[in-house]
């Protein structure tokens, strides 16, 4: 009996267990999934907690509930992978050998990477990328008397790169509904040169920030935070004062990857962007936020990768060459406030463009433009996530590879040349 071992039972790991259990005969292949706890959070829900739309209990379920019965689930802390002997070593001394390993250990915030950040942690400095952080921020926002609220992205790449923008849009909306908008100044601080990485979406999202009177400080790289004086200090000497700092700290992969000596400078696993196989080891694959592939770190990406990775693992087992089929496809609903959301759909080569989704002309969802139906789409997605995405069921009309149909490139950008090329 051979063993396929999956490290991580988040979005990517869970979908892979479901897809591969259908394709690998239980008599030939044991599938084992490991995670350090049994709490599966619906991560897109974190954004809603600070504004009181959800509580953390609303967005968590046991990981084990989404794994097939014939898959073994182990709750334990992994110490490291030993790729030379095809073994995974656990903190408690156990050792598991594998024939094929899938790394799906995700990414997390690491506030300690920025000097001074932990000094004001959950006092005047908050995150909304963890259930506890988002919950603490909800309490803080309720009691915040007014002043300068700074929304800060410390370093890229981050999970769900649009989330801090959504946070800014939500802030504006909620404050206006509570007639407190005039008491609070909103400022968005980013290491990027604009609201987003790609030109067409940057223009649309930047215009929304301006419309909602959110100040923008771009090209800002934080050297440290002075939690006593309440200011972010940049490497270039600029200082950004705050009364309340909502930060997205540096995102990094699992420490286990570093202990295994397998990560890049962010502890992400160097992964072939098209086949999703490890660049170093033939029988190791990776999915989702744990990889270093140059697309968004987002659940939709893990979902699109899963179908392609499942096929490639079956091919690898059969001794066939892998298909370089993953195109970097990502699809994100961006909450823009006032019951509306923007939908973006893009891949390695095509930046987010305006148009209609999933069908040309009839849509029904408009791309790169706020609309009510996109907001309903985002709300419906929570149900789709638990009931269709995690079990590995196809989502109707949304294939793994991006479709160009329905998208159009604005005339000024089409002439621009460099826009949308593969990084």
């Amino acid at each position, binding site marked *: 009996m051979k063993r396929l071992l999956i490290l991580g039972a988040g979005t990517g790991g869970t979908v892979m267990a479901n897809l591969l259990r259908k394709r690998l005969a239980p008599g030939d292949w044991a599938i084992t999934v490991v995670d350090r706890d049994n709490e599966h959070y619906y991560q897109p829900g974190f954004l809603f907690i600070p504004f009181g739309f959800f509580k953390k209990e609303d967005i968590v379920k046991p990981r084990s509930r989404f794994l097939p019965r014939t898959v073994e689930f182990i709750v334990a802390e992994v110490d490291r992978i030993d790729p030379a002997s095809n073994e995974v070593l656990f903190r408690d001394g156990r050792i598991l050998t594998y024939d094929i390993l899938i790394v799906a250990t995700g990414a997390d915030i690491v506030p300690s990477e920025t000097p001074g950040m932990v000094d004001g942690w959950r006092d005047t400095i908050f995150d909304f990328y963890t259930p506890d952080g988002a919950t603490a921020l909800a309490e803080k926002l309720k009691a915040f008397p007014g002043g300068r609220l700074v929304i800060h992205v410390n*370093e890229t790449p981050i999970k769900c*790169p649009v989330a801090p923008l959504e946070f800014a849009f939500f802030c504006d909306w909620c404050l206006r509904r509570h007639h407190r908008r005039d008491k609070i100044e909103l400022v968005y601080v980013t290491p990027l040169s604009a609201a*987003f990485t790609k030109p067409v979406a940057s223009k649309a999202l930047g215009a929304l920030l301006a419309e909602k009177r959110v100040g923008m400080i771009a090209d800002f*790289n934080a050297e440290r935070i002075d939690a006593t004086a309440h200011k972010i200090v940049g490497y*270039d000497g600029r200082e950004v004062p705050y009364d309340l700092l909502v930060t997205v700290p540096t995102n990094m992969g699992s420490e286990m990857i570093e202990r295994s000596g397998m990560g890049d400078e962010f502890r992400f696993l160097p992964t072939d962007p098209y086949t999703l196989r490890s660049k170093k080891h033939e029988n190791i694959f990776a999915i989702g936020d744990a990889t270093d592939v140059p697309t968004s770190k987002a659940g939709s990406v893990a979902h699109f990768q899963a179908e392609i990775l499942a096929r490639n693992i079956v091919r690898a087992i059969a001794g066939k060459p892998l298909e370089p089929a993953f195109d970097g496809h990502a699809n994100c609903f961006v909450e823009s406030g006032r019951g509306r959301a923007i939908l973006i759909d893009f891949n390695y080569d095509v930046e*987010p463009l305006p148009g209609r989704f999933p069908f040309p002309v009839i849509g029904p969802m408009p791309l790169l433009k706020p609309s009510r139906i996109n907001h309903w789409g985002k709300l419906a997605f929570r149900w789709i996530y638990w009931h269709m995405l995690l079990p590995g069921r196809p989502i109707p009309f949304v294939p793994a590879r991006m479709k160009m149909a329905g998208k159009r490139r604005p005339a000024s950008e089409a002439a621009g*040349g460099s826009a949308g090329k593969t990084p």
Partner: protein
Amino acid sequence: MAQKQYGAATVDVDDEGFLADFTQWTREVAAAIARDEGVAELTPAHWKVIEFMQKEFKENGQAPSIRKLNKSGVISTKELYDLFPGGPAKKAAKISGLKKPEGCV
């Protein structure tokens, strides 16, 4: 494709002045781009960064992150800002003759 005159050399550049063709890069061109970017003189410390950036680009097809420069022991981030004031990742890539570092989405 736009062209730019750097000393005796004429090179192809994109809209933002990044070299379109690395084979046109020379140390003289680098020094001229540096002057345009407000770096008056390329010191041995600058060259150490430039050489590392070019080696990384050759191996990985993209310019290294500031974090990687820092972690590899080439230069601390603070020193990097001192050497290439403003946006060091972009400036150092431009002077090294690499294409514009694109943040991932």
